[in-house]
């Protein structure tokens, strides 16, 4: 879905190494004191370097980073709402504390989203699940995600066919008038998904499923020490920046 197929050094890294690197990088960013502006510049530079290495364009990254907007909207309100010492800017009276708070949310949120986007752009969904599995993420979670990945398309196909069938029988496709048919469709789709789940389970039983997925994929491959080291460069640099920022402020 977000995956951008390419052959870059970042794409080639094993998924588990990239996942760990992304999480550690985010921790370093979050641990950085908000007053250390230069540190956030350094993080942004790291993101730009990795993006360049992975051949992910700035337009692609920034347009998808907009997803964070609803979550950081509060950051823009903080300078107006917070109490305490105030500064005048463009005729607005802004709270200094609020400005810092807003900046904190916005900078850390954006860096976290960009890092996750880079992970998603360079790792296929399949590999992400494989990576989580190798990191000993509870199997039930990866199983659910695997099923979702496989059956999302089947369900989307089914709902599309149901919609075409509705339209063919003269359903009005304008937004509001479509709601009733749409709602009934959702109900039917739920039932179908439920029945399909039942049949899939039977078919799995027939092939000897005993409640656990065979550990076929976990044992093959896995990151080598060199790959772990390569993936570690980003979080190590970020940790260094965070430590410096903590000491200096």
């Amino acid at each position, binding site marked *: 879905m977000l995956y951008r197929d390419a052959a870059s050094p970042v794409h080639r890294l094993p998924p588990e190494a990239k996942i760990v690197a992304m999480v550690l990088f985010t921790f370093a960013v979050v641990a950085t004191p908000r007053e250390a502006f230069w540190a956030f510049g350094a993080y942004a530079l790291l993101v730009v370097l990795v993006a360049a290495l992975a051949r992910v364009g700035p337009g692609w990254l920034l347009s998808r980073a907009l997803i964070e907007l609803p979550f950081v909207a509060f950051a823009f309100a903080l300078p107006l709402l917070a109490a305490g010492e105030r500064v005048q800017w463009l005729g607005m009276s802004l709270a200094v504390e609020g400005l810092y708070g807003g900046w904190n949310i916005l900078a850390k949120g954006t860096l976290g989203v960009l890092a996750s986007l880079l992970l998603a752009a360079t790792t296929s969904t*399949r590999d992400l699940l494989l990576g989580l599995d190798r990191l000993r993420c509870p199997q039930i979670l990866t199983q659910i995600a*695997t*099923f979702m*990945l*496989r*059956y999302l*398309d*089947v369900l989307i*196909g089914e709902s599309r066919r149901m919609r075409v069938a509705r339209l063919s029988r003269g359903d009005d496709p304008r937004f509001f008038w479509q709601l009733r048919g749409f709602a009934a469709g959702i109900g039917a789709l739920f039932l179908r998904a439920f029945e*399909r789940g039942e*049949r*899939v389970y*039977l*078919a*799995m*039983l*027939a*092939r*000897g*499923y*005993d409640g656990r997925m*065979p550990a*076929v*994929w976990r*044992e093959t491959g896995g990151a080598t020490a060199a790959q772990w080291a390569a993936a570690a460069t980003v979080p190590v640099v970020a940790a260094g920046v965070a430590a410096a920022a903590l000491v200096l402020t």
Partner: protein
Amino acid sequence: MIAPVETVAALAVRDLHYAYPDGHPALRGVTLTVAPGERVALLGPNGAGKTTLVLHLNGILAAASGDVSVGGLPVRGDRATLAEVRRRVGIVFQDPDDQLFLPTVAEDVAFGPANLGLRGAQLRERVAQALAAVGMSAHADRSPHHLSFGQRRRVAVATVLAMRPQVLVLDEPSSNLDPAARRELAEILRALPVTLLLVTHDLPYALELCERAVILDEGRLVADAGTRELLADAEVLARHRLELPYGFAPGLATG
């Protein structure tokens, strides 16, 4: 075809009864014996109990009374027996989308043998052989939903073949296939050295693949004969809501 006395039947069903949870009887005393290597068509109208019978053959449904045995092994509820029964009897379900649930073809084909405990090179060899048997080797790493329906059906057959079953049960294998895909599948099935139970109401397909046919209607086996002979009996077919396609004469078909 009558099995020699000394061979153990590949499938033996004796006086099998089953009722749905709501009490409606689905099977009312089914008795069926299939010899090793035999190819038998299980015919019957919709709702005759065909799929219910199939689910008894590998112990997914448990018989209310009567018994089922596979290669001499009685199907019972304990784990070890069920695992062995499911290794011996492979079921290919009607909708390949029910059967293929993993992100790539190769993983799906590996699912069954991995459940049997195979690992590493052995497992890879099983997968490669099963995909080769259905002519899908080139698509091992693709996602099932990118394949055509006919290709998905073939992969579904491979997922079961990879378990090396002694008995292969196919539920409506020719449904929704275009004529070429239908013929290709028939060629694949005919080449397999296994006992075959073909559940269908596609009568020409039964004639093409199976020398023997049985009719299941309202939970009972009502006919058991050579396929050509059975399809020539218009009266029996009509009594059980089975009809030959327009213009099809079983006596003239070459097979």
